[in-house]
C-alpha cells in the first residue's frame, strides 16, 4: 500500500488564548483539589467543593489552564501520600491517621486493662493455691 501523507494544520490553528472549555476548567479544579492538604479536600457525593472562605481561581484561557496544570501535576506525587476520603456530611474530614492512632490508643488501653485484670486474677489464684 502507498504511504498516506497526513497534512499539518496551518500555523494559524494555534491559539492558546482560546477560552478554556468546561473540560479544562474541571480538570484544573480537580487538580487544585488533589494537591490541597487533606483537611482542605472536600468532596460531597462525589462532587469537589471548596471549603467555606476558599476559592479555586477560575481558568479563563487554554494558556491559563496549561500554566496551572504544569504547576499542579508535579505536586501530585506528594499529594498521593495524603488520604483520599469522601465526606458524606459536607465537612472535610481530618486525616484518618489521627483517627487510627486514637483508635489504636483505645485498643492499647483496653488490652492493657485486660492484661492487668488477668494478672491480678492469676496472682489471686496463686495466692489461694499457696494458702491451701
Amino acid at each position: 500500500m502507498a504511504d498516506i501523507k497526513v497534512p499539518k494544520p496551518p500555523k494559524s490553528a494555534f491559539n492558546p488564548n482560546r477560552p478554556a472549555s468546561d473540560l479544562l476548567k474541571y480538570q484544573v479544579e480537580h487538580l487544585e483539589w488533589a494537591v490541597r492538604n487533606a483537611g482542605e479536600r472536600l468532596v460531597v457525593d462525589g462532587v469537589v467543593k471548596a471549603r467555606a472562605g476558599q476559592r479555586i481561581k477560575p481558568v479563563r484561557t487554554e494558556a491559563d489552564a496549561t500554566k496551572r496544570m504544569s504547576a499542579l501535576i508535579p505536586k501530585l506525587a506528594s499529594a498521593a501520600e495524603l488520604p483520599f476520603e469522601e465526606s458524606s456530611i459536607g465537612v472535610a474530614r481530618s486525616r484518618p491517621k489521627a483517627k487510627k492512632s486514637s483508635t489504636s490508643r483505645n485498643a492499647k488501653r483496653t488490652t492493657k486493662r485486660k492484661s492487668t485484670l488477668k494478672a491480678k486474677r492469676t496472682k489471686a489464684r496463686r495466692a489461694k493455691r499457696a494458702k491451701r
Partner: protein
Amino acid sequence: MPPPGLDALRHVVVVMMENRSFDHMLGSLMAINPAIDGIDGTQSNPDSQGNLVKAEPKAKYQSQLDPDPGHDFDEVDFQIFAGDTTVNRVPTMQGFVRQYFEKRRDVKASRQVMHYFAKDKLPVITTLATEFCVFNRWFSSIPGPTLCNRAFAHYGTSFGHVGMQILYPNVQFKSVYERLQAAGKTAKIYLFDLQSASMEIVNLLQHQPQFFGTYRQFLDDCATGNLPDYSFIEPNYTDHFSDAGEAILASDQHPDHHVLEGERFVASIYNAIKANQALWRSTAMLLTYDEHGGIYDHVAPPGCTPDGFVAQPADTGTGKPFLFDRLGVRVPAVLVSPWVPRNTVDNRDFEHASIPNTVTELFAPLHSERSVREIASNTFHDLLTLAAPRPDHDTPSFTL
C-alpha cells in the same frame, strides 16, 4: 482453540479522543461501503424555524463549532428526543440543530452541527476504518459529557454520575489498572505531557506514578518493547508552548481544536506500534471517542443493562431521574491489528464499558467484582480472526 491472533495478543492500546459523532467523522464511508451505517443523503433535522437541514459533507477542521455544541445530560436528552418528555417517548435524533441554536442564537450557524467530513479530509481515521474493523454501533455510555463517559472506560460504570464534577474515592469497583496490577499485569495511562492532565490523574492519585506515563514515554516504550499489557492514551487537551518554546497544538479534536492535529496524533501512535514488528503482531489498538460532543448522529441509542445506580433529577437537569438504562449517542470506533481482516464491519452493540470488560477478560479473568453493566457489555477481542497476520505491505502507513 482460540484464533491465532488472540493467542498472540499481548497488548491492548486504547486511544480515546474527544467529542465527535460517528456520522460526523465516518458517515461519508457509507458511499464506498454500504455496510457502514453512515450518511445516505436522507438524514435531516429541523432548525428553529422548522426548515429541514440535511446532513452534508461540509465539515471544516476548525471554526465551525465555536462555541462548543451542548453535551450536558439535559442537552443530549433534547438532541435525542427533540424535547419530548412523555413517558413513551421515542429517540428520533431530531433535536440537534434546535439544541445548538440555543447556544448561538444564530439559525444559519446552528445548521453546522449537521455537517460531516468528506472522506478525503480525514485520511487517518477513514483509512484505519476501512483497512481494519469499524464498529457500526459503538455508543458513548451515557447521554452526557466527557468525564462520566470516560469513567466507563476506566471502571465500567460512572457510579451514578452524569456530569463533570466527579471523584471516585473508595469505590466498590476497582479501575481496570488496579485489577491488572492485582493480577500481576501492567497497565498505564499515558497523558500527553505535564501541561495536559489525564482525566484519571486525580482518581488514581494513590497510584502515582506507576500508572502514569507521558506520550513521549509511550513512543519510547513502543520502540524498546516495554509497552504495558494495557495502555490508555490521552491526547493533548490544550494549545500550548513546550518547555523549549515550541507551539504544540491540541490533538484531542474537541471543538474548536484543529481536527487534523488529532489525525496526526493517531497516526503517530499507529506508526510507533507498527515500527516494532514484534509489538505490532501482538497488539490490538482501539481508537474511539468519549462522546459525540453535541454533533449530529442518526442512530438512536439503544437500551442497556442498568448498573444499579440512579442519577437524581437535580443532576440530570431534565426533572427526571436517570436509571442508566440507555446508552449515549454513537461515536466512531475502530479496531486496528494485523490479525483483523480488511473491511470488517461489526454490527453488535458496544459502549465504553466494553473496554474494561475486554481488558479484564484478557488479562485479569479472575477479577469478579465488576458492575453488571460491564459484565453485560460485548467484548471485542474475538475480532482478531485471521489465521496469520497481514504482511506489512498489506497494511497502511502514514507519513507525518
